[in-house]
């Protein structure tokens, strides 16, 4: 009698365990409620930021991000649409920031008369910004904040 009820209890426990396993969906923050063996619907594409307002750099060496859309801008051997505004000679008319002097340097540190071929393809470093909210938050702390924490009496 004791043995039989134990078997029944065990059977119930196994059944409950497996059903709870099958019913459970693995929810990951990034992929959402879609089961692992399925491909979920793609999130909608969001437009790029187009404010044309300069954005702060996170560290001094960071290539500034592009605060406007660049859809259809041709940058190849034939021409460079970005330089139509950002080239030295074009900035008076366009009021756009000039490409920095580092872009005129060849790899030996010599300054050329115009943009160096190795710095010609803008989107290798500079990118436009999407208006999408990032699915993973970023806890980057810039150097000024770190330094202010380190100073005596600074906020920690």
């Amino acid at each position: 009698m004791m043995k039989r009820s134990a078997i029944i209890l065990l059977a119930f426990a196994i059944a409950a365990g497996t059903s709870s396993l099958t019913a459970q969906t693995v929810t990951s923050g990034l992929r959402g409620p879609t089961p692992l063996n399925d491909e979920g619907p793609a999130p909608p594409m969001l437009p790029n930021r187009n404010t044309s307002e300069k954005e702060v750099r996170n560290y001094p060496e960071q290539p500034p991000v592009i605060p406007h859309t660049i859809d259809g801008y041709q940058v190849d051997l034939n021409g460079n649409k970005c330089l139509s505004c950002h080239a030295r000679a074009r900035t008076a008319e366009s009021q756009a920031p000039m490409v920095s002097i580092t872009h005129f340097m060849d790899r030996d540190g010599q300054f050329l008369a115009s943009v160096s071929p190795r710095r010609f393809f803008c989107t290798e470093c500079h990118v436009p910004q999407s208006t999408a909210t990032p699915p993973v938050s970023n806890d980057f702390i810039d150097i000024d904040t770190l330094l202010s924490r380190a100073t005596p009496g600074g906020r920690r």
Partner: protein
Amino acid sequence: MTTTADDPNAGLNARRSFLARSRDFALELWRVLTRPSSVFALGTLVLAGFVAGVIFWGGFNTALELTNTEKFCTGCHEMKDNVYAELKSTVHFTNRSGVRATCPDCHVPHNWTDKIARKMQASKEVWGKIFGTIDTREKFQDHRLELAAHEWARFKANDSLECRNCHSADSMDVTKQSPRASVAHQRFLFTKEKTCIDCHKGIAHQLPDMRGVPGWQ
């Protein structure tokens, strides 16, 4: 006896007689055309002339409009594989509102006189098609600067008329534009300092080698 085959002047005679016959035919035709009609009433002639005129004019314009379609333009692989293929990824082919430009919207003037003038120039393109001037991608790339320069010059000369057929400066709401576009249009377009093509080269097709083109590096 002397046959025509033996006569050394036979060929000349035959040609002379053909010329003479042609002249006689032309003279006879002229006499028929200038003599008053003795068979048809004046009303019949006027009416027939009118109907024939309508058919001719309608037929002419219909044929002209048939050559003014994207289907006709992309009937040649030169257009289909090069410029049309490039247009497909641009805003003038797919966009949020679904309004799109076809080849003639930008490349053929809309008013009649200019359209006929452009169509006459286009006979050069028929020549190019027959002799395969740009029948490979490489040949097309080689000619791209020249072809583009023709279109830039045409747009510059008519103040970008084909752009303005859809994009009117008067109807442009700069408050709805991005800050960059708004400032540029107010500074250069509204003051008539520049015309559309000055800044918007390569908006619908890929650009040729832009070295030496004003405003390009």
